[in-house]
């Protein structure tokens, strides 16, 4: 659990973070979202003491972080940096292995971990591991940055716009991957982004920031349904917040399940139970149908969903 109590950070006269209170439960993904310069990175960097705070308290598991040894604190907090900050004189493998090395893991365990992470993030352990950072594309570098943050198996993850430089498809894949990792590992995560869709997708709770203050801290659904101010309303976009709401829930939550899954003909455009209601609605509109069969990841027909169920689920 991470608690920020009345935390303020000034740079000279300018206030970058203004008296914020924020509690992040263990295993939760808290997404800080807001426009550029609102103090997201500053908040993140105060949590691992890369920046000292001007006033207030930051507690991790009830202990003030200022009482801890800063290096030990950071070794237990994976940190993915906005500008990636890979070590230019080290190969990808050595970059990823830096925290295991600092933790003095045996070489074999470290190497296994490195290739596991490379695979997980869609990089090739054979060819990409021996590259130097300047030989990577921006997106690959960011993935290495994320892998490096995960490598030491930390309890806490601090991620500063880790998917910022990626194309939509890779970004989507990595977000899925991140959700999957999160379901397994349940790391306490603070994730910074300025993309509200990414925030809605990944967050257990979202903290909307503006000019160094937290405007609203709530679940994605509550943020969509009850935006606390015009600023938040603008951020989520008035026009399609209904659709965004549909995007929060999966088809599996609302469909009528068959008693027994059955093998069936693969259709052109299939709806999976992990797809969001938003995707289901889109397919329905496109195919002009009231009812759609739902398939599992394995390709079995597991249920069906009607337009009424969809709309009730979203409401």
């Amino acid at each position, binding site marked *: 659990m991470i608690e920020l109590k009345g935390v303020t950070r000034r740079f000279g006269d300018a206030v970058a973070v203004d008296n914020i209170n924020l509690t992040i439960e263990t295993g939760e993904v808290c997404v800080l979202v807001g426009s550029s310069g609102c103090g997201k990175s500053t908040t993140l960097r105060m949590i691992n003491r890369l920046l000292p705070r001007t006033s207030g308290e930051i507690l991790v598991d009830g202990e003030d972080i200022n009482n801890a040894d800063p290096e030990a604190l950071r070794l237990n907090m994976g940190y993915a*940096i906005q500008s990636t900050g*890979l070590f230019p004189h080290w190969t990808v493998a050595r970059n990823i292995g830096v925290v295991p090395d600092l933790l003095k893991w045996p070489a074999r365990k470290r190497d296994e971990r490195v290739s596991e992470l490379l695979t997980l993030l869609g990089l090739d352990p054979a060819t990409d591991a021996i590259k130097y950072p300047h030989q990577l594309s921006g997106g690959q570098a960011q993935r290495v940055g994320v892998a490096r943050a995960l490598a030491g198996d930390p309890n806490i993850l601090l991620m500063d716009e880790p998917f910022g430089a990626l194309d939509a498809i890779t970004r989507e894949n990595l977000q899925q991957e991140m959700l999957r990792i999160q379901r397994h590992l349940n790391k306490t995560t603070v994730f910074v982004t300025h993309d509200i869709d990414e925030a809605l997708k990944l967050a257990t709770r979202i903290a909307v920031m503006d000019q160094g203050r937290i405007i609203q801290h709530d679940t994605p659904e509550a943020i969509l349904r009850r935006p606390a101010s015009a600023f938040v309303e603008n951020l989520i976009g008035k026009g399609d917040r209904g659709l965004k709401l549909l995007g929060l829930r999966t088809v599996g939550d609302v469909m009528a399940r068959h008693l027994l899954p059955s093998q069936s003909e693969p259709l052109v455009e299939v709806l999976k139970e992990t797809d969001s209601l938003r995707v289901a609605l889109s397919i329905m509109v496109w195919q002009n149908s009231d009812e759609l069969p739902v398939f599992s990841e394995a390709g079995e027909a597991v249920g069906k969903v009607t337009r009424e169920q969809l709309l009730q689920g979203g409401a």
Partner: protein
Amino acid sequence: MPVSTKPPTRVLPALALAAFACVWLLDLGVVQPNRIVSGTGYGLYAATGWFGAVVVSFLLAVVIVLATRLTPKRFGALILLLTTALMAQPLLLEVFALRKLPEDSAYARIGIGAGFWCLAFFLALMLLETLGRYKASRRLQFSVVLLVVVSWWFCASREGLSSLSLIREYANRADQFSQALTTHLSLSLGAVAISAVLAFGLALAMVRRERLRRPLLGLVSFMQTIPSLALFGLLIAPLGALSAAYPFLQTLGIRGIGWAPAMLALIAYSLLPMVRNTYVALMEVPEPVVDAGRGMGMNERQIFFKVKLPLALPVIIEGVRITTIQAIGLTAVAALIGAGGFGTFIFQGLGQAAMDLVLLGALPTVFLALAADAILSALKFQRAPR
């Protein structure tokens, strides 16, 4: 290696033409009746007869033709041709000695003319240009240089060139020569090593304490502005006084003249490039990278040794390179205060108006500087992140 044809180079033909002009207009060699009297010069044709003249002219013509269209094959041919030409160049002098040296006079000797030096210079430039365009590997470049050096060494030790003035000067001073080599190397490299340690400490202090930056940089820059001769001279008085006051210093060889003041002055000169490069290198390590190191949980010591130092090393080595070349040159001047080294020959030669004795001091100095340059450049290149 390049597969396609490169655009024709104008540099190679221009260099070849310049070499052609020099070798025909300037004297290839000189016959001197003894070591002091300036002798009579001979041009290429007069010195080596029509055979030498044709070979040299033909070679330069071939270079021009090959350079008009550079296919990979022609690159190979050019490198081979130029290397062989450079390796065989001393033979021109041998032919010259055979034809023109009067046999009856024991003091007569052969001097090297400007035409010979120009030819060697332009051949070397063409070879470097070709190797550069060919993107030759370090190993090939190194082998070529080694071949040429060994070949010149071999030619110099042959009977045919024993009448060469330079070699006679050497033969008269073979012991002094190796002594000079040892002194020269230990003075310059010793000064570089000591100032490297000092500079590292100073640069670290400047990185740690911003306040020290201006005074320290000011001090080392000031030392650089004192003329070298003056600095050597200025050290004589205090060191002389010191050793007079504490006689045990004299047993260590510390006196007003000799190696001690030379060493001090060399260190003083070496500090500026070393301190400046080390400081700049350490300061210019990108902030996000240092930040990443800290964010990953490195302590300050680990950040320094694992991140900052390796990233700064190429620029630090560059500082060592500049300093070493400078120190090798300055050590020659230090001979004036009795420090020894190759400068001794230079100043003796100047005093006796024996130009070949000057060369005997100057050539090895240049060679040492070039060798240091090559070795440290290779080291820097190897350390730079690929």
